[in-house]
């Protein structure tokens, strides 16, 4: 026989003003199984909790119903109180008579009636509550970082620092990401390479870190603490262990007309290549789309010149499988291609460039060795126009709806650098708003205006027209002067929007994490859990979660690392016990539940059963991994036989509530 205690809270006057709490306690006291029914001023206070605890001990309660505020508020409080009094915490039910009763009704009679019904429903439910014990699942002490940009590198370094093994998977031949392509960084104007490359080397040299460059994540199985990831190591046709990175092959390769991705296609590289001098790992890669040997079987020069014998034309993609306890996503961003904005003439005028292209043009390791020259005729530009918000802040059809966040600052940086190095050059920046929220950011922008005399014009460029004389006519509006301008420019630089990497969406599917409509990963909570995904054990680092500058990226990378370390430190994790479970005797093995499970928590086994007619039979039955199951209950409805049920929200419990309410 159940022995249930009911505790009705006044919540000061919050409840008691509209609900006759004494009447509620009295009415619920008559319910079957209820042995004690009390009311109290503040049930969540220490003395209120003591009331519950004492009653549990004194009356040897088998269930507790607290009629109070929302369970979202104090369910845990009362569960803990019950546990400390020796009652299983899952034998506590809350009847929400504040948010869903006293606060919305004015009439005392009807509010009291409703509170009684809600209380009865909770009593009916608690009759069927079963003690639940949270399970434990072991944690594999190794983390995976997907993406080897500054975010991934920082996360990996921090995790390794804490003493855990980390693998970085980078799809390009080298780690470094976008930061490696940048010349100087705002607002300090220090050289990006000078601060990034030491970190790259550190990552390479750290014993705890394994870098899988030129690799991709092919499959993710498992769950928090116990992911099994398949990594595809793409064939680079060079034996990583043998290549010394001497670069001889890249010098001798006869195929020299390959667009150089690292320099944004502004110059060429060879078919066998090392992306840049400080690449990590410094290993050559053969581009099978251009290599004459791989395409036609005729050449083999690199193989001949390689003293290490590292060239291997027969190399194939390799799959490696590894277990991880935590996964950090750091897939980063790409600038969009501004092709579709005809008015900016990007697709046909070589002197209209994107900001990242300008970075390369100005970089000492770039195509012009650091001298800013127009791509078309390699002359020195005297008038440069910067256009802000290209593809950002648009409506959905025209581009990205969000602000790309970094453009205002890097444009100020570019303008300043140009004015500093080439004082004879006039620089115009067309802006809609200048957004500089960040430490020393506005000061930086003001310097561009005040110290470097960059012409900031509020207005947008409407049309860019290349002219026969090689000049570019830039037609724009100056909103403050209320006039339309024509600027005879030599170069136009577009501050293009940034978007998540294309690989992010398929990856999100594999990880069962959520994404927003722009393909940025969604954090578990925008304020309280900004570096975790909603899927346990998956963390977010850097621009994959939203546009970020370098300091923010590094901060988030370290935060994600801290979260991952927090997980990896545990030997095992406690699981939510309100999970689905399958009654094997009733399971048909039809796979319906598996199809609707968003977490892949359901697997099937062939098991031998003694059937009702005393025969034995091998049957396919479902089993739920309680560590993976999040307890949504989708499977319970998909299951036609009712073999699937959910702890804490079982069919019989919900029906008991329905019955009590409809009575």
């Amino acid at each position: 026989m159940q022995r249930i205690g009911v505790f009705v809270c006044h919540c000061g006057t919050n409840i008691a003003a509209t609900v006759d709490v004494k009447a509620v306690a009295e009415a619920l006291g008559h319910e079957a199984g209820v042995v004690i029914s009390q009311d109290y001023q503040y049930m969540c206070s220490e003395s209120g909790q003591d009331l519950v605890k004492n009653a549990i001990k004194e009356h040897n309660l088998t269930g507790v119903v607290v009629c109070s505020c929302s369970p979202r508020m104090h369910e845990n409080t009362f569960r803990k109180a019950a546990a400390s009094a020796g009652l299983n915490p899952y034998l506590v039910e809350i009847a929400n008579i504040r948010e869903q009763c006293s606060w919305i009704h004015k009439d005392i009679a009807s509010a009291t009636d409703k509170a009684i019904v809600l209380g009865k429903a909770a009593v009916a439910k608690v009759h069927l509550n079963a003690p639940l014990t949270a399970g434990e699942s072991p944690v594999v002490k190794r983390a995976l970082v997907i993406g080897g940009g500054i975010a991934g590198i920082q996360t990996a370094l921090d995790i390794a620092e804490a003493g855990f093994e980390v693998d970085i998977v980078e799809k390009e031949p080298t780690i470094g990401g976008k930061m490696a392509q940048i010349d100087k960084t705002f607002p300090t104007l220090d050289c990006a390479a000078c601060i990034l490359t030491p970190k790259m080397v550190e990552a390479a040299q750290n014993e705890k870190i394994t870098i899988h460059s030129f690799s991709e994540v092919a499959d993710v199985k498992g769950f928090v603490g116990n992911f099994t990831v398949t990594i595809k190591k793409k064939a680079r046709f060079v034996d990583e262990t043998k290549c010394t990175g001497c670069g001889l092959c890249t010098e001798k390769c006869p195929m020299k007309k390959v667009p150089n991705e690292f320099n944004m296609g502004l110059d060429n590289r060879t078919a066998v290549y090392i992306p840049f001098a400080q690449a990590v790992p410094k290993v050559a890669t053969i581009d099978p789309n251009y290599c004459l040997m791989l395409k036609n079987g005729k050449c083999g020069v690199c193989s001949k010149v390689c003293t290490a014998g590292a060239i291997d034309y027969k190399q194939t993609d390799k799959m490696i499988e590894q277990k991880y306890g935590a996964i950090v996503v750091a897939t980063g961003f790409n600038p969009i291609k501004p092709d579709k904005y005809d008015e900016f003439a990007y697709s046909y005028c070589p002197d209209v460039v994107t900001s990242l292209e300008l970075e390369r043009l100005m970089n000492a390791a770039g195509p012009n060795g650091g001298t800013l020259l127009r791509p078309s005729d390699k002359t020195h530009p005297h008038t440069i126009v910067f256009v802000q918000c290209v593809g950002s802040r648009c409506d959905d059809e025209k581009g990205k709806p969000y602000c790309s966040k970094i453009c205002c600052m890097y444009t100020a940086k570019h303008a300043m650098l140009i004015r500093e190095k080439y004082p004879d050059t006039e620089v115009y920046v067309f802006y809609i708003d200048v957004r500089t929220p960040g430490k020393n950011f506005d000061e930086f922008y003001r310097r561009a205006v005040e110290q470097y005399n960059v012409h900031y014009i509020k207005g947008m460029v409407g049309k860019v027209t290349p002219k026969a004389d090689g000049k570019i006519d830039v037609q724009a509006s100056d909103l403050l002067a209320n006039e339309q301008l024509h600027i005879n420019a030599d170069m136009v630089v577009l501050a293009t929007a940034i978007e998540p990497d294309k690989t992010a969406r398929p990856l999100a599917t594999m990880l069962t994490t959520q994404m927003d409509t722009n393909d940025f990963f969604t954090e578990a909570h925008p304020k309280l859990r900004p570096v975790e995904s909603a899927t346990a054990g998956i963390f977010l680092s850097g621009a994959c979660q939203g546009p970020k500058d370098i300091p923010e990226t590094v901060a988030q990378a370290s935060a994600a690392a801290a979260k991952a370390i927090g997980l990896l430190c545990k030997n095992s994790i406690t699981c939510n016990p309100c999970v689905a479970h399958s009654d094997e005797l009733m399971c048909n093995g039809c796979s319906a539940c598996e199809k609707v499970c968003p977490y892949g928590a359901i697997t099937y086994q062939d098991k031998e059963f003694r059937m009702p007619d005393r025969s034995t039979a091998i049957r396919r039955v479902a089993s739920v991994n309680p560590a993976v199951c999040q307890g949504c209950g989708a499977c319970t409805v998909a299951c036609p036989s009712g073999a699937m049920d959910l702890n804490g929200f079982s069919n019989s419990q919900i029906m008991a509530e329905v019955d009590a309410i409809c009575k």
Partner: protein
Amino acid sequence: MQEAMIKRAKELLADGTVNRVMGWKRGEFSYDITPAVFETAEELDAEFVCDDLTQANVSKYLIKESRKEGKILALLKPCDTYSFNQLVKEHRIIRENVYVIGIPGGPKIDIEKIKAKEISGILSVKNEDYTLKIETIYGTETMPYYEAISGKCENCKSKKHVVFDELIGEDGDVLESNRFEMVEKLENMTAQERYDFWRDQLSKCIRCNACRNVCPACTCENCVFDNPKSGIDNKAAADSFEENMFHIIRAFHVAGRCTDCGECSRVCPQNIPLHLLNRKFIKDINSLYGEYQAGADTTSRAPLNDYSTDDCEPSIVHERGVE
């Protein structure tokens, strides 16, 4: 055709491909045909029957039979292959243990249709060039073949065998049928008319469970209506609600899995048009989530175990037809 089936079955038994044959056995009269498993050539010769009156869908028996020792030969009509395939998809039938021969389908004759013409004392029914010659105790009667076509064959959806190891006779195509005609007619009624129609029909239900037990989609190890733990178990329709409840839940449980084989309505002793409930779901699924034929393949996702982010809202119910 029956001879060809017996001949081929005997060959397969003889060469050891199969050790049993799932077929039909003749009865006391020409129409009381019982699904049966044959183990020898002699049994086949003596009792096997597959004629115009052989209606039963035997695919559900193969759940159990495919779990026995050795391989069984199943003779499946086109509509039966859909049920069979759906059961393979749901891991209920072990495909490797069944050798499937696709046999021609209907239209089959339903004896009830003949009896409805007030022809009684039926001793035999012969199809003579699409006229039925019916010998009765009270003399010989005739009626056109098409007037006696079984309800389940009236709106045949397909003559195609979706799964087979070999065929006897030819394979056909998926047909254009007007099988949703009656559903549409009901949809166009007022809610009160629909309510009256279904009250009239479902109040006839005696909860004999024939529809459930014959249904190839109802293969639960333990049906929720038999399971006291489910909270909705009941043995009898003690109230009109329970008549509704049983049929709504049953139709919902087979929604997206029902191949529209028509067995439920065929076996109902009270002639309740139960298939209309299933067809309503099929029609809704087709129109709201794209054409889907359960059993047509073994790989696609069942519509209720699938979704699209731009699915319609349930308010679509309010926007359609008559209230």
